[in-house]
């Protein structure tokens, strides 16, 4: 596995991300509802006495807006006239796709239709919340999954009671949709009628001075619920397969040999079985990486986190295409990189899989 292999895969990943973003770009422009309707806002339906003329003035406003946003240009290099007769028309470089691509190649993701802010700035502001939270949640969930799986397989004879309870709980949590899980946690832990121990106002608005211990505690308290939701949501899907894989590895001959040599069951599981058991689950672990840039809409809405999921959902609802396309591009790139990382980890842990 050399530099060129990684370079080629990286190039291929970026090409795939670009292909996905291009497909989204062309698809969103086929939607019946135009972006300018949402950017211009709802017309004042009954209030204006001047409304007898609004038909013309609104059309003029729409035209001006479409011109400012570049929506009056053709979508692609080649378009088909509605006809009859149906004809294909070549537009050269004067089209929306070419403009978007040129900006992209210069590192510019475009500008939001609704606020005219650079898309990169909006994504950056959202990633500041999403990436650390998701990274922390993924790390905690992974660590906890390994610890739980090792604990669950560590029973010399019959399963202990706590192991049965944990397994049942994990299976139950896995059956719950994320929304129900998060809402249940909120209602349980931030409710005057039950446990009134955590805040319900999302990330809150009143914080002590930045950097002080009180700030850390206050910030940490506000993070508990979203973090707990995210960890619990992925914990069963990491722990249960890992436990099954560990059990299978512990039945292998090399594990029996290790036990015969006098190693404790914990040492056998941790030192010998775990590295092998983790192999089939590498894709699952690296699959958590894209969520670090994509976020989770449900958790972000419920706990008022200003992250990527909310940004993307809001942009999609208001047809803010530059923002939608940039978010998709970013998420697709992260997904491709996660797959590449999974491959590299496989090759690193099992040299037999390396390309010749």
């Amino acid at each position, binding site marked *: 596995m050399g530099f060129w292999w990684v370079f080629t895969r990286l190039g291929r990943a970026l090409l795939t991300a670009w292909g996905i973003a291009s497909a989204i770009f062309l698809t969103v422009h086929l939607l*019946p*509802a*135009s972006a300018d*309707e*949402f950017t*211009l*806002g709802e*017309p*004042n*339906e*009954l*209030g*204006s*006495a*001047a*409304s*007898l*003329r*609004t*038909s013309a*003035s*609104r059309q*003029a*406003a*729409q*035209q*001006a807006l479409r*011109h*400012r946003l570049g929506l009056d240009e053709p979508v692609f290099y080649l378009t088909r006239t509605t006809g009859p007769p149906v004809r294909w028309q070549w537009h050269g470089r004067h089209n929306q796709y070419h403009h978007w691509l040129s900006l992209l190649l210069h590192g510019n993701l475009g500008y939001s239709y*609704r*606020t*005219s*802010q650079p898309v990169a700035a909006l994504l950056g*502001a959202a990633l500041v919340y999403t990436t650390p939270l998701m990274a922390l949640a993924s790390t905690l969930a992974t660590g906890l999954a390994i610890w739980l799986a090792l604990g669950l397989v560590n029973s010399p004879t019959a399963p202990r009671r706590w192991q049965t309870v944990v397994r049942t709980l994990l299976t139950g949590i896995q059956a719950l949709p994320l929304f129900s899980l998060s*809402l249940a946690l*909120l*209602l349980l832990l*931030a*409710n*005057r009628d039950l*446990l009134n*121990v*955590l*805040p*319900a*106002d*999302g990330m*809150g*608005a*009143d914080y002590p001075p930045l950097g002080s211990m009180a700030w850390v*505690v206050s910030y940490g*308290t506000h993070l508990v619920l979203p973090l707990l939701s995210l960890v619990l949501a992925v914990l069963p899907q990491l722990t249960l397969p890992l436990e099954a894989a560990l059990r299978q590895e512990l039945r292998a001959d090399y594990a029996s040999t290790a036990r015969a040599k006098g190693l404790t069951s914990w040492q056998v599981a941790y030192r010998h079985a775990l590295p092998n058991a983790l192999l089939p689950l590498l894709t699952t672990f690296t699959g958590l990486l894209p969520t670090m840039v994509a976020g989770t809409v449900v958790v972000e*809405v*419920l*706990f*008022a986190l*200003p992250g990527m999921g*909310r*940004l993307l959902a809001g942009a999609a*609802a208001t047809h803010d295409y530059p923002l939608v396309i940039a978010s998709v591009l970013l998420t697709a790139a992260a997904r491709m990189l996660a797959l590449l990382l999974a491959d590299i980890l496989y090759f690193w842990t099992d040299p037999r899989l390396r390309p010749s």
Partner: protein
Amino acid sequence: MRYLWFGSYSLALLLSACSSPANRQAGDPIRIRWARDPETLDPLVQPNQNTVEAINLLHLGLLQLNFQTSEYDPALAEALPAVQLLGDSLTQLDYHLRAAATWDDGHPVLATDVNFTLKLLNCPGLPSEGVRSQFGFIQQLQLDPTDPRHFKLVCQGQAPEYPWESGDFPILPEATLDPTHSLRQFSLASLQQAAKTPPTVLLAFAKRYQTLSQGYYPNRVPGCGPYRLAGWQPNRSLTFERKATWWADRLRPAPLVLQAHPKIIKYVILPDDGAAMLALRRHELDVYPAMQARAFQRLKALPFAQQELAFYSSASYDLLYAGFNTRRPTLRDKLTRQALSCLFDPAGLLAGTQLGQGQRTVGLLPPSSPFYNDSLPLPTYDPACAAQLLRRAGWQLVAGGWRRPPAQRLVLSLRYRANDETFETVALQFRAAAAKLDIPVELRPTEATTLNHTLHAGDFDVFVRILKGSPSGFNFAPILHSRAVREGNFVGYTSPTTDSLLEAIVAAGPPARKRQLLRKFQVLLREESPLLPLFFMSYRLAADRHLSHLLPSGLKPGYSAAAIISSDGLPAAPH
């Protein structure tokens, strides 16, 4: 395991101590729930209601809405403008600005600032297309060379609503935004025409304006409103701080629209209704506006709520109504539309969806309006009458449904916004009522962003939606005039009689004449039934009991944040 329990218990105690907020203390900010971010604070853009609310704290218009009377009161203007009709197509509005009005830097607010703002709204290259179309009727501003605070607005057309509609935009300072007076060389009319090929001077000005990024850094431009932005964490919170000295503080007596009591107003953005309700109960919020009916009732019923919270409900101008596609051959005749109107149950729907909080109506005006036609009966659910009307319309009930020669079959599709409990209930009630008469109804819930497009395209038989009105909203042309068929006239209803009546209503000056025309319009609407008004919705508001003078109103946002008076440390005010 013992350590685990001890750790958990300590953690719970710590969290509880850190997170349980105490009741309001003296000087605490007023924390108001918003469901979404304002996105920008640029007065030219105003993409949503929250932006409008925030901008009204930073800037002032000539007139401001008085939430107590639901009328416009003078703000920067000394009084409502004097109106003079010029010929039969123009209106002249005479304004005087208050002598006390100043910007934050101490400079007076002058007529040249108003002139500049109007030109700014119409300057090509700026993202002001929405606002521009709203104030496009103002054609000229005439300055008075002898009085820098006196000016006249010349408006195209004549309408009784012009005096207050002409003053509802934030005035911005010319000295900061255009120090070189580059817009003075252009007339307002020439700017309105310059959209296609704007001169370089205008493009340069537009670029300069945008580099100020006023939408995100509003403090770069001095305002004349009572607050300044103290902090904005996008999608989390906005904090506004009362200016220590504000020009309107010197006015005696202070008009209601120029009162600003809270020292700090904090808008907390909580998208989820359930989380917002928990936050209100935990005193992490003080004001929860636009509450859903069920949540409002549930909260009101809680034992602690009556001691800690105050509840307000105001009749709004938002009307839930059903519309019929009059372009469809089956719905072209009024008898069929009248029959289908009888299958909606406004009383039951009001009780079922709003728990009775709202007002039934005979037409498009609320019962509180002086022009309401109370001689008309309220629409009611009457399937027997519906069947009778269908027969009178020529329909015959044969095997498989209602048919009419030559080959018409009464089968309906009903569109409404998806994921909305109220619309879904209306749709299900109508379908159930229609099914009893053997009229098949296909429900087509449509995603919000494509619903308008679908209605414009006429791809429906019946729709249910909300019509946003206002106390002065007597202009029904946008939804029923034949010229609005490609716009807001989704039902496609066209009639020369209705057109002339709608135009006469808009132009009518004396209230007696207006009353006569509006009563006639309500009768006509009932007779023709292109749409069926179901009921006016209510705005519900819950607030901490220590807050008073919220001025709950049926107008958005349903309260006045600047008017709120806090009695922290004192016994709760009776409500």
